[in-house]
């Protein structure tokens, strides 16, 4: 594998307690199993439209979201099931949304690509690549102007970095020293376009220099490393020193969406990255340290599967929004 991500030395040696590490594992398993179920349900025609799986990248959302408090805000992309789940959007409301049911978090209006949750300050679910960045800057501006020590975490892919909105939003956030944590999920591909074919400068951290913005990169397959780096960055942001850029180097194990024949990459590359799967990696680490047994893992998986089964059942039992309600929520009044 040519692009083995660089792991900042020492990060994974952080002292963290067992319960927390097991919870990180639990969250990664929730995403993994939830999305495996989604893929199944997609084939069965229960979920429709576009479906983008996060499988392989779980360590990024799980690690990064540890750095946020409930008051913080999140802006994500169309590949956001994981972020929504970890943030606390109930799996059943998420699943119901993907079924298009009235009980879905967006009453069936948004679907997989447009998850929103006011309670957890989850601002989508944006399916225009790069479109979330300016919004995140504005959320942070509102916090700044209202004197609230909050952070807005903005997730986006390597592909988004080429868009003009990335440039404009990074500049404005830095110019105005706004509390945004820019989290780039660099999975090396934008659909079928590898980063070398999209970026004249593939070292994305260097782009932050254009905006005089402190930046860092982290191994996105190591959930502890991501958490540590995100905590460092989020704390700096929260303390008012302006925005930070964190590149999380990761890989998507599945196709871009359910329509993708994956003509653009070799199976061997995928396999090589799968050998760095963040879930077995964390299991192995905890097991080696004597902190986790096979039984523990089985228990976690059982809990996760039960949660997901309940979510599917909830979604199946959900109702259809009446057609008469079609145009509600276009205007507030």
């Amino acid at each position, binding site marked *: 594998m040519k692009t083995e991500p660089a792991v900042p030395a020492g990060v994974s040696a952080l002292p963290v307690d067992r319960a927390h590490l097991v919870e990180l594992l639990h969250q990664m398993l929730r995403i993994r199993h939830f999305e495996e179920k989604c893929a199944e349900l997609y084939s069965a025609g229960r979920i429709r439209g576009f479906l983008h799986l996060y499988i392989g990248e779980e360590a990024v959302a799980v690690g990064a979201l540890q750095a946020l408090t409930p008051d913080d*805000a999140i802006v994500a992309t169309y590949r956001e099931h994981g972020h929504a789940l970890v943030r606390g959007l109930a799996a059943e409301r998420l699943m119901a949304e993907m079924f298009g049911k009235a009980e*879905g*978090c*967006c*009453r*069936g*209006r*948004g679907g997989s690509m*447009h998850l*929103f*949750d*006011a309670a957890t300050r989850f*601002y*989508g*679910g*944006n399916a*225009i690549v790069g*479109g979330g*960045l*300016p*919004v*995140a*800057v*504005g*959320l*942070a*501006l*509102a*916090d700044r*102007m*209202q004197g609230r020590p909050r952070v*807005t975490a903005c997730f986006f892919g390597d592909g988004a970095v080429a868009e*003009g*909105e990335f440039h*404009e*939003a990074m*500049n*404005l956030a830095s*110019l105005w020293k706004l509390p945004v944590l820019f989290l780039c999920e660099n999975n090396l591909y934008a659909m079928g376009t590898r980063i070398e074919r999209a970026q004249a400068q593939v070292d994305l951290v260097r782009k932050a220099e254009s905006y005089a913005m402190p930046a860092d990169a982290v191994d996105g397959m190591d959930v502890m490393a991501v958490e540590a780096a995100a905590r460092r960055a989020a704390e700096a942001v929260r303390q008012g020193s302006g925005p930070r850029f964190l590149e999380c180097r990761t890989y998507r194990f599945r196709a871009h969406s359910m329509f993708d024949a994956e003509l653009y990459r070799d199976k061997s590359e995928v396999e090589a990255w799968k050998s760095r799967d963040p879930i077995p990696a964390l299991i192995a680490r905890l097991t080696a340290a004597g902190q986790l047994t096979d039984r523990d893992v089985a228990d976690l998986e059982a809990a996760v599967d039960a949660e997901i089964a309940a979510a599917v059942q909830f979604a199946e039992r959900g109702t259809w929004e009446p057609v008469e309600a079609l*145009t*509600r*929520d*276009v*205007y*507030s*009044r």
Partner: protein
Amino acid sequence: MQTTYRDALRAAHREALQRDPRVFLMGEDVGRYGGSYAVSKGLLEEFGPDRIRDTPLSESTFVGAGIGAALGGLRPIVEVMTVNFSLLALDQIVNNAATLRHMSGGQFNVPIVIRMATGAGRQLAAQHAHSFEGWYAHIPGLRIVAPATLEDARGMLATALEDPDPVLMFEHQTLYNMEGPLPDEAGAVDIDRAVVRRIGTDVTVITYGGSLGKALDAAGRLAAEDRIAAEVIDLRSLRPLDTPVILQSVAKTRRAVVVDEGWRSGSLSAEISARITEGVFYELDAPVARVCSAEVPIPYAKHLEDAAIPQVGSIVDAVRALMGRQA
């Protein structure tokens, strides 16, 4: 009190900024430069750089940041210098501002006001003189207003800021210097009703914004020269359209001319024509006529620009033709 459209707008901004600490103004050169049309002149000095924010040249991002700020509890007024540049921010306006409420199943709404100059008449040529407000009026989720009078320049902003949803406000470039009296107590006005600006019985002339003055002048000429009593409607709100007021008038006059600075094909005037036909077809004595811009990027030369957009003369001619009078 004698005032100008520009000063009335400025007064509306001052009042909004004074009354509600959540209100702020952001855009290119709204601060130190004083606003490209001088609407915000003096506001930086009065309200400081936190609330009067000069932005870099980044239309998409400062409009998007306005959307985010609105989500975050503020009441942003975002000034985009002209509607021509707003095309750079269109993704944010259409794909975010207009859709967020619906996509989120009603969880989030976007109380932003986006102001921009529009229209031709100052020889600014094809990248500074177009009229896209009719285009914006196509988008569900947006509310579109066009103040054509001093009262509306003074009063629409406050109401727009109270609206929980995105409001786009279009100020015709040629109106800023318009002068006239304004009552001292002038304040907030509604932003959804059309208003009959001149009563008439023979024909209804429907327009808005920069063309209202021309339509009224044309009505004056028609009265004086042809004894034609034209009723003139100022739409004020382009989305939603106040269809009942339009239909009521046309049902009475049985004839309508729509005047609109957009290019004829696909203009707002087409929508109004279609609605009139749908609504009062059997009352019509003649097909609805339209006076629009010629299908050409607005040229620089004065005589060509004048020929490209609606004028008093072309409105008069259209009414005469509709009434079967000789041109």
